[in-house]
């Protein structure tokens, strides 16, 4: 690796100060699972690496007035082990489990996964289907926006060079919303998603109908996308297998998958239809099981 300087931040405000001090050629390191793999093979390494891995104020998982807040430094392993997350959002646990292998999940953080902004990132679809928001901190203070608006393109986000992502918040109205994450990779272990899909649904009524169905598709467009036409089709509709299959077909038409060495665009489109249907069926099963309890 080419030479760089290393400074450690005590907490988030200190990290912002260090970013301001060292200028735009500074990069943050948290778990390092993406950054260090990149830095070993790139000619333009940052002049300074700011280590935030010890910033205790970015590590909490807390139920608050505004919802479930997950600190940017919470690791994928911590998500899998959190009793609160396991109880409210098993889909987040499923998604975390598909990221890398245990070594990666022990170091890799939720915030780090999101800021890479690769279209196939596995922590994103579930959070977007739950309408999660992200908070960023910069020299001028904090700002908050929908995670869906955080990504602007492959490996691109709205994050400015002097800002850091500090937390992810799932809004209170969606606490416990039945949600499913489905991923298809070429292997079981350490595989990049060909397609990943998350769906969240409320079911209401004696003959259950969809209320606020939300579908997020990953790896099939420059950023993770919602499937608004499929969602609109389902809203208020009876939760039947036919409706869910049709929503899958509609969602497939909303994506812009590409062909590459892993799979063709046509194959990915088929996967979207199947995984969307499976995600809806699984979320509905969770909703029905929850109602019986």
């Amino acid at each position, binding site marked *: 690796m080419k*030479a760089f300087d290393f400074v450690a931040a005590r907490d988030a405000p200190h990290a912002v100060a260090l970013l301001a001090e060292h200028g735009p050629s500074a990069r943050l390191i948290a*778990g*390092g699972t993406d950054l260090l*793999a990149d830095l070993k093979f790139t000619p333009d390494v940052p002049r300074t690496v700011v280590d935030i891995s010890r910033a205790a104020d970015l590590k909490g998982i807390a139920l608050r007035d505004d919802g479930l807040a997950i600190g940017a430094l919470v690791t994928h392993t911590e998500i899998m082990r959190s009793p609160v997350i396991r109880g409210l959002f098993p889909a987040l646990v499923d998604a975390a489990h598909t990221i*890398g*292998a245990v070594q*990666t999940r022990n170091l890799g953080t939720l915030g780090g996964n999101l800021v890479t902004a690769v279209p196939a990132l596995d922590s994103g679809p579930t959070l977007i289907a739950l309408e999660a928001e992200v908070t960023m901190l910069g020299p001028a203070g904090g700002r908050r926006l929908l995670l869906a608006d955080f990504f602007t393109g492959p490996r691109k986000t709205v994050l400015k060079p002097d800002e850091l992502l500090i937390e992810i918040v799932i809004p209170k109205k969606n606490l416990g919303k039945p949600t499913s994450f489905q991923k298809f990779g070429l292997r079981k272990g350490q595989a990049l998603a060909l397609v990943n899909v998350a769906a969240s649904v409320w079911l209401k009524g004696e003959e259950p109908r969809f209320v606020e169905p939300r579908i997020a598709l990953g790896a099939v467009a420059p950023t993770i996308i919602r499937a608004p036409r499929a969602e609109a089709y389902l809203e208020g509709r009876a939760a039947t297998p036919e409706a869910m299959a049709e929503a899958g077909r509609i969602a497939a038409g909303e994506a812009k998958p590409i062909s590459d060495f892993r799979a063709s665009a046509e194959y990915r489109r088929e996967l979207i239809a199947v995984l969307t249907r499976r995600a809806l069926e699984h979320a509905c099963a969770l909703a029905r099981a929850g109602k019986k309890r």
Partner: protein
Amino acid sequence: MEVTLKVNGEARSASVAPETTLLVLLRTHFNLTGTKLGCDVGDCGACTVIVDGQAVNACLMLAGQADGREVVTIEGLATRDRLHPLQQAFEDHGALQCGFCGPGAILAAKVLLDESPEPTVDEIRDALAGNLCRCTGYTKIIAAVKEAAAVLRTERAERTDRT
């Protein structure tokens, strides 16, 4: 920069360049070459070590990030008297051929057994998914981990009986 960490129970310090990884620190500065350099990007798991009780890829952690932490490497497992039960089981089962993946696989398995004394085959496969082996086809590795788990459970039960 100066770093001080506990390696296999012993405090060790070194003066390193900031871009030094934990892997380079262990191999080059501390001469602990049991930890292997494989892919260097966190895919193969040959550099797996235990940091504060968790399996991590030493190639993806900076020495400065390991400062003040507790690291266990493959050199920390055997005692003067005997191999660790995992090492013994790997040997007995032929779970190593070329042996390059062994240190990482054994340490990943150790973390699993520390947390889960009686793992299922699926749990073993999941815990070792980040440790690539091109020789054994994994069957013998999984058998060795199962046996080591049984040995460790027996030893633990005997210790409890004695106290």
